C-alpha cells in the first residue's frame, strides 16, 4: 500500500505494503464536528456485546469475541499554494467471531444499534463456522486466555489531533509548502493523516476492553528540477507515522538529533525538515553518482526501520512460515526446523531483535490485541539466534507454547482478525557508542538516511533498498552527498554483517501506516525502532540509466 491509496480515498474510489483500501469499508464522509461526539457509551457496548456472546454460547461456541469499532480518519492533502482535499470519515459497526465445532465463523454488521442486529450477525457467524467445520480436516486449537474484566486503554499523553480545527492544520501545511518553495524547491506536496480507532473488545473469556488509539503522520515530498540538464530529484520528509497526537508537531530541543541533517525522535519539526529538504534535493541533482561496489553501510533509524520490517518482521510471521500466505505475500526462509535447531544464526551476536506491543509512541501500541491478549514484549532474535515467531492464539500451540503474545489485528470492524506484525525492533547497543564514534572507524562507507525504494523476495532472502539521503564516508569522515544508490543483500548475510549498533541515546522509531497482507487485503500500522547501525561489506549498485 502506498500514499496514493490514501489520496484515492480522498476521491472515494475503493482501493504492502500491498494495494488495499485503508479502513475504507463503510468509511463515510462526515462533518468534522462529529469527531467530538463521544460515540456509544461503554455500558451500551457491553450490553450489545453480551447479547452476541450469549447467543454464541447457545450456538455451542467454545469461544467467541465481539469487536465494536468506530474508526475516525482525517486526511488533508495539499500541493504548493493549494489544498487538494480534506477528507473526514467515520466507520462504525461490529464484527463477531465464533469458534463452533472446532472451526471459525465470522460476520459483521454496520451501524450496529441494537441487540437484534448483533444476535443476527452472531447466528450468521455460527452458521459459517458449522459449515466450515464439515470440510475442516483439523479442529482449531485455541490457546487459553484469562479474562481481564472491564478494562480500558488510551494512547498515552495524546492531544487529539482530530479536534484541532481543520483550518489550523491546512494553514500549517500551506506554510510548509511556502517554506519549501522559498528555499528552492520547484514543487511540494504535503499531507497530514490522522487516525483514531475507538475499539471495544469483548470475549467469552470475560474481557471487556475499551480502547482509544491515536495515530498521526505529517509528511511531504519536495521536487527540484535542474532545467539545464532536465534532472529532477525528490526528497521526502524524515518524519515517521507514530502512535501519538498533535503534540508530535511541537518539538523540544531534546526531540532533535543533530548531525549531517537533523532527524527527529518523540516530536517532529516539519518546517526545519522541509527547509533542509528543499536545499538537499537541489544539491542531490549535482551530487556524485555512486561507484558500484562493496561499502560499509551506516544506516540511520529513519532508514533501517524498513529493512527490519521486510527482512525480519515479515519473515518471522508464523502464518507465512506455515504457508497460509503462499499465494500472495509468500512464505518465509525462517522455517520451523531452523528455529527448532536453536542454532540458526539469523545475524551476528550483536543482533537482538524483539517484538513489542507496548512501546510508547509506536503504531502497534495497544492495551489488548484483537483477541483479548494483553500487549507484551518478546524476543525474536537473541544474540543472533532465531528464538521465536509472531503468532496468534490459534497458532501458538505449533510452537509448543500456550502463552499468547498479542499479534492479532483487524483493520476494521468488518474484517476478520488474523496474525499481524507487532512492532519489531533492533535493540540498541549495550555499550556507549555515539553515531560519530561509529562512523569514525569506517574507511569506505555510505551513510543512509530516510527510506526510499524497497523490494524483497517472497521468502525474504534477497532485498534491495534505496533511501532519501546518501553521504559518502572516507576514512571516518563524511565527505559529500551521493546519488543513484541502492544496496542489495541476502537477509542472513546482511544481519551477520552487523558489527556495531549505537547506544540507547540514538534509539528512534520509524514505521508505516500501510503494511498490507491477506486476501482480501487488510492494512496495518506498525513501528520499528533501532539506533544507527553499521553493516560491513554490503553490495551497492548504481541505479542511474540513460533512456
Amino acid at each position, binding site marked *: 500500500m502506498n500514499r496514493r491509496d490514501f489520496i484515492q480515498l480522498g476521491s*472515494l474510489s475503493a482501493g504492502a505494503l500491498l494495494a488495499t483500501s485503508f479502513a475504507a469499508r463503510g468509511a463515510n464522509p462526515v462533518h468534522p464536528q462529529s469527531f467530538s461526539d463521544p460515540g456509544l457509551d461503554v455500558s451500551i457496548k457491553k450490553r450489545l456485546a453480551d447479547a452476541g456472546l450469549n447467543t454464541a454460547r447457545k450456538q455451542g461456541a467454545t469461544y467467541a469475541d465481539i469487536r465494536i469499532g468506530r474508526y475516525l480518519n482525517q486526511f488533508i492533502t495539499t500541493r504548493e499554494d493549494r*489544498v*487538494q482535499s480534506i477528507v473526514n470519515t467515520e466507520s462504525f459497526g461490529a464484527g463477531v467471531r465464533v469458534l463452533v465445532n472446532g472451526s471459525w465463523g465470522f460476520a459483521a454488521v*454496520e451501524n450496529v444499534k441494537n441487540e437484534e442486529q448483533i444476535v443476527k450477525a452472531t447466528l450468521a457467524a455460527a452458521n459459517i463456522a458449522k459449515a466450515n467445520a464439515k470440510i475442516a480436516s483439523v479442529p482449531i486449537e485455541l490457546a487459553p486466555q484469562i479474562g481481564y474484566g472491564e478494562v480500558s486503554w488510551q494512547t498515552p499523553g495524546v492531544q487529539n489531533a482530530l479536534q484541532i480545527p481543520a483550518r489550523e492544520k491546512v494553514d500549517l501545511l500551506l506554510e510548509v509548502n511556502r517554506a519549501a518553495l522559498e528555499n528552492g524547491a520547484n514543487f511540494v506536496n504535503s499531507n497530514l493523516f490522522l487516525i483514531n480507532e475507538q475499539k471495544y473488545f469483548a470475549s467469552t473469556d470475560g474481557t471487556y476492553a475499551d480502547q482509544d488509539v491515536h495515530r498521526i503522520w505529517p509528511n511531504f515530498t519536495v521536487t527540484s528540477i535542474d532545467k539545464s540538464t*532536465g534532472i*529532477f530529484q525528490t526528497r521526502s520528509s524524515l518524519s515517521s507515522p507514530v502512535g501519538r497526537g498533535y503534540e508530535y508537531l511541537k518539538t523540544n530541543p531534546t526531540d532533535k538529533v543533530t548531525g549531517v541533517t537533523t532527524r527527529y525522535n518523540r516530536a517532529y519539526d516539519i518546517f526545519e525538515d522541509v527547509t533542509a529538504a528543499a536545499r538537499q534535493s537541489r544539491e542531490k541533482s549535482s551530487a556524485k553518482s555512486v561507484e558500484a561496489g562493496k561499502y560499509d553501510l551506516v544506516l540511520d533509524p529513519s532508514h533501517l526501520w524498513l529493512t527490519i520490517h521486510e527482512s525480519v518482521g515479515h519473515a518471522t510471521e508464523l502464518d507465512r512460515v506455515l*504457508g497460509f500466505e503462499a499465494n500472495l505475500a*509468500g512464505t518465509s526462509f525462517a522455517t520451523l526446523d531452523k528455529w527448532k535447531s536453536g542454532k540458526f544464526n539469523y545475524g551476528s551476536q550483536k543482533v537482538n531483535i524483539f517484538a513489542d506491543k507496548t512501546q510508547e509512541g509506536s503504531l502497534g501500541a495497544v492495551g489488548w490485541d484483537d483477541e483479548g491478549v494483553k500487549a507484551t514484549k518478546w524476543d525474536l532474535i537473541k544474540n543472533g539466534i532465531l528464538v521465536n515467531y509472531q503468532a496468534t492464539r490459534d497458532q501458538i500451540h505449533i510452537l509448543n507454547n500456550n502463552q499468547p503474545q498479542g499479534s492479532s489485528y483487524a483493520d476494521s470492524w468488518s474484517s476478520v482478525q488474523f496474525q499481524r506484525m507487532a512492532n519489531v525492533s533492533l535493540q540498541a547497543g549495550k555499550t556507549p557508542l555515539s553515531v560519530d564514534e561509529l562512523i569514525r572507524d569506517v574507511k569506505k562507507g555510505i551513510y543512509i538516511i530516510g527510506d526510499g525504494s524497497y523490494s524483497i523476495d517472497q521468502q525474504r532472502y534477497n532485498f*534491495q533498498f*534505496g533511501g532519501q539521503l546518501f553521504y559518502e564516508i572516507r576514512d571516518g569522515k563524511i565527505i559529500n552527498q551521493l546519488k543513484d544508490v541502492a544496496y542489495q543483500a541476502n537477509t542472513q548475510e546482511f544481519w551477520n554483517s552487523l558489527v556495531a549498533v549505537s547506544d540507547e541515546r540514538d534509539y528512534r522509531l520509524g514505521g508505516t501506516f500501510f503494511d498490507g497482507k491477506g486476501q482480501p487485503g487488510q492494512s496495518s500500522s506498525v513501528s520499528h525502532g533501532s539506533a544507527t547501525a553499521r553493516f560491513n561489506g554490503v553490495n551497492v549498485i548504481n541505479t542511474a540509466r540513460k533512456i
Partner: protein
Amino acid sequence: MAILSEQEAKIVISKALGFSGSDEIFVSLKGENNGNIRYAGNSVSTSGETSNISLSVTSVFGKKSGTATTSELDEEAIRKVVSRAEELARLAPDNPEYVKGLQAQQFQPTPSFFTSTDQIDADYRAQGALHSIESGKKAGLNVAGFIQNASGFTAIGNDKGLFGYNKASSVNFSATVRTEDGSGSGYAAQDYNDSAHLNIKSATDIAVQKALASSKARALEPGKYTVILEPQAGQELLRNLVSSFDARSAEEGRSFLSKKGGGTRLGEKLFDEKVTIYSDPFHRDIPSLPFSPDPGDGRPIEKTVWVEKGVVKNLSYSRYWADKKSVKPIVAAGGFIFEGGTKSLAELIKNTERGILVTRLWYIRAVDPQTLLYTGLTRDGTFYIENGQIKYPVKNFRFNESPVIMLNNLEEAGIPQRVRGSLVPPLKIRDFTFTSLSDAV
C-alpha cells in the same frame, strides 16, 4: 438489491438532484455483490460474501466542494446526504483547480456484464477451490489459492443533464502450487468478465507443471540475458509504463516524458517500432467502464492510442490541466492492449538460441522516476532456454530494468492474452538486466 437497473438508478439520482440547493451537484451511485474463498495447505482458510450500495453526492458552491455518502436510498436518507454534502462544501476551502461540471455526454454501451458471473455463489467457489486443491493433491503438491467474483453497477449524473450507467462483472482466480519439500513453485491466474471462460482446473494444472518443473533449480550468474517474459510477468511493468503517461507531470519536468529544457516527448520515437499500445473500454476481451466516475468528472472514455510503432501518440490530461493547456482532456488508461504478433509462447521459445523464460515477476517497485527504473524478482518458475528448448530450472533473479529500455530491446511479441484486465503478449527482450540471485522458491 445491490444491483439497480438503469431506470432504478436514474430515479435515485434524479431525487438527489431534486434536493440540491447548491450551485452544482454531481451524484454517483454504485452497488456491488462480491464473494471470495481463500485456501492454503490444501484446505479452505477463509470465505465471505458482501453486498453494498453507496450513493455519493458532491455539492459545489463556487469553487468549494463537499462530498457525503450514504448506503440508504429512501427519500429521507437522500435528502439528508445532499444536505450533508452542502454543509461540507460550505466549510471547504476554494479549490483553484475546480472545473465546472460537464454537459450531457453520449456514452456507448460496453459488454462488461455477464449473467454467468453474476450467478456465481458459495457452492461454485467451494467447488472451484476443491478442483484446484485436487489438481495439486493428485501430484502430491500443496495448493494455496483465491477465487473472487463481483458484479455491480456504476451510475453518475449531474445538474446539467449528464447521466451514465454501466453494469460490470468480474471473476479472478489465482493459485500457487508448491512441492512438499519447498524446492519448486508454480503460479497461475485468470481473470474475466465472463466466468464461462474461467477454467480453474486447467489453470491449476499449469501451476502444478511449473511447480514440478521448477524444482531443484540451478544458479546462473546474474547479468544481461535475452528473456521471454510470459504475459503474467510482463503485465505489471507495462502497466507502470502506461500509467506514467500523465501530461501534467511531463510538462512540469518531473517525468520520464519530460524534455530537457521544457516540454514533453510527445511525438518522439521512444520505443522499438514493434511497440503499439492502446486502451479501449469497448474491447470485447477487456471491456470496462466507458466513463470516468470521479466526482466532477463524467468524461466518456474513448479508444486511445498511447504508443504507435514506438512513437508517443497521446498523454492523459485531467480536466483542469486540459483546460489550462487548451487541449482535449484525454482520460488515463485503465486496462491496456499491447499489440502482439501471431506466435505462441512455445514458438517464441523455439526460436530462442539462449535465454531465460520468466513466468512471473514479483515485488516490483520504482527505483528512479527519471528513467522509470524498476526493481523486482522472478518467482514461481524461471527456466534456462538453449537451442529452442527449456533445458532446466534456474534460481530466481533480482532485476533492475526500465520498461523504456526493455521496449527498445524488444525482439518479438507473441499472441496477447488477458492478464489483470489488460491484453499482454509474451515478449522476447534482449539484454534484460538481472543484478543478483535469490534463494527464494
